[in-house]
């Protein structure tokens, strides 16, 4: 009973905070500056990890499919086809966002949490600045803009990884080519984009909430950072079920 009450209290506070954050910026000039900075910090700085992980996962998926479903009855292009569908529908959109929830979520929660405990947020409030709007909105808008680009990079890197397995002689490039092109449904790409935008909102808003509401010292900031990652990961997985059933 207590945990339900606690959960509802957090939900109410989260909605209130988002109400303050998602409003017209005090100064568009400052918002745009912050927006570009956040896109760079949260998105551009994540390109490396997205490319590396996606490349290797693409290669591994290709190898696993080849090893596990290889049969004289199965067309050879199935390996490429399955790799494409997995990357497009689930890995690049959902699993990559889960990984980014760890990197970006902890970054946001600890940054805002540290600002809270060092009174920087109080300083903004005293100046008459809407601190929630100034700090949180550019992060939400920035990651929601850059996440679809990261997902696209992830799909491309995964497919490149699959091609790389042909160097090991597991498959051939023409077989993979055929599979990658076979019955391509453009909507699946857009499904990934929609999921990316929703997950970007979840990661930034939940992590910002956890950081903004920190009370105490460095231990609490560390805890809020962990909570932000755990909670946004759970919410991503939970919403994945609904989004998948709604979109496909």
């Amino acid at each position: 009973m207590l945990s339900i009450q606690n959960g509802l209290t957090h939900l109410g506070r989260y909605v209130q905070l988002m109400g303050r954050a998602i409003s017209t910026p005090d100064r568009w000039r400052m918002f745009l500056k912050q927006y570009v900075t956040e896109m760079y910090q949260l998105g551009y700085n994540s390109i490396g990890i997205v490319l590396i992980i996606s490349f290797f996962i693409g290669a591994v998926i290709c190898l696993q499919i080849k090893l596990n479903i290889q049969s004289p009855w199965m067309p050879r292009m199935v390996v490429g086809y399955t790799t494409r569908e997995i990357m497009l529908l689930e890995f690049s959109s959902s699993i990559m966002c889960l990984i980014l929830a760890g990197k970006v979520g902890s970054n946001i929660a600890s940054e805002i949490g540290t600002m809270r405990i060092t009174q920087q947020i109080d300083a903004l409030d005293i100046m008459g600045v809407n601190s929630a709007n100034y700090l949180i909105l550019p992060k939400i808008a920035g990651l929601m803009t850059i996440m679809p680009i990261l997902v696209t990079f992830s799909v491309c890197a995964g497919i490149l990884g699959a091609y790389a397995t042909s160097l090991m002689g597991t498959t051939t490039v023409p077989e993979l080519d055929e599979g990658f092109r076979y019955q391509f449904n453009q909507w699946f790409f857009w499904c990934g984009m929609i999921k990316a935008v929703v997950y970007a909102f979840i990661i930034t808003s939940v992590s910002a909430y956890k950081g903004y509401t920190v009370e105490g010292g460095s231990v609490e900031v560390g805890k809020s950072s962990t909570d932000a990652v755990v909670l946004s990961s759970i919410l991503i997985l939970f919403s994945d079920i609904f989004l998948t059933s709604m979109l496909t």
Partner: protein
Amino acid sequence: MIKIEHLYKSFEDKEVLKDINAVFKDGEVNLIIGQSGSGKTVLMKNIVGLLTPTQGSIFYDDKDFVALTKKEKILLRREMGMIFQSAALFDSMSVLENVMFPLNMFSYDNYDDRKKRALECLARVNLTGAENKFPGEISGGMQKRVAIARAIVLQPKYLFCDEPNSGLDPKTSIVIDELISGITHEDNITTIVNTHDMNSVMGIGENITFICEGRAEWQGNNKEIMDAENKRLNDFIFASDILRQAKELHDEKKGLK
């Protein structure tokens, strides 16, 4: 002028401020003094609106801050400057960017004029040449001076300082006190300083409010404090040997002992 009438503040069952009445005058350094845990910071947070009083009124000239709408509070806050105990500078910004921040948010001047104004404020706190440094690269005293420059850049009517000398050596504390006092008199600002630094009390305390266990026990200035008869105030002010001896000398001179 800031006037507080019958102010109460409770946290759940605990009553932290009890019927506080005080007047903070224009163009004077108003000090709030008291032991740690006496309610000074809670009082300051109520005055600036970071906390909402349980009961009572806070008047900024003729405006009751508690009764103002959210928008009116935001507008009034733009007339306030605050120096925090930890300086609360933005880590990701340079010294110049920190001082320019309020101008960037609220001023319609062009970039050159904003920069010029920020540099003037930095010069006023003797920090010319430090504008490209980051808060992590400068000393605690310099951070406090940057905080002062940031607080005065919009020419506020009200200046709040929460333990500005905390963590500073006595010499640097005097520099900070002199800066706060100078700015208050030159710009005719209503300044409220939260402190338990006795050098500040004796040096710049033109209007002192003593808080004890959540009540305003005494109000006067740094000259009157030597002759105050409030026992709790005397126990607090003259706790150190040096000040106790100074008090004894003062009393001897006046023929009280």
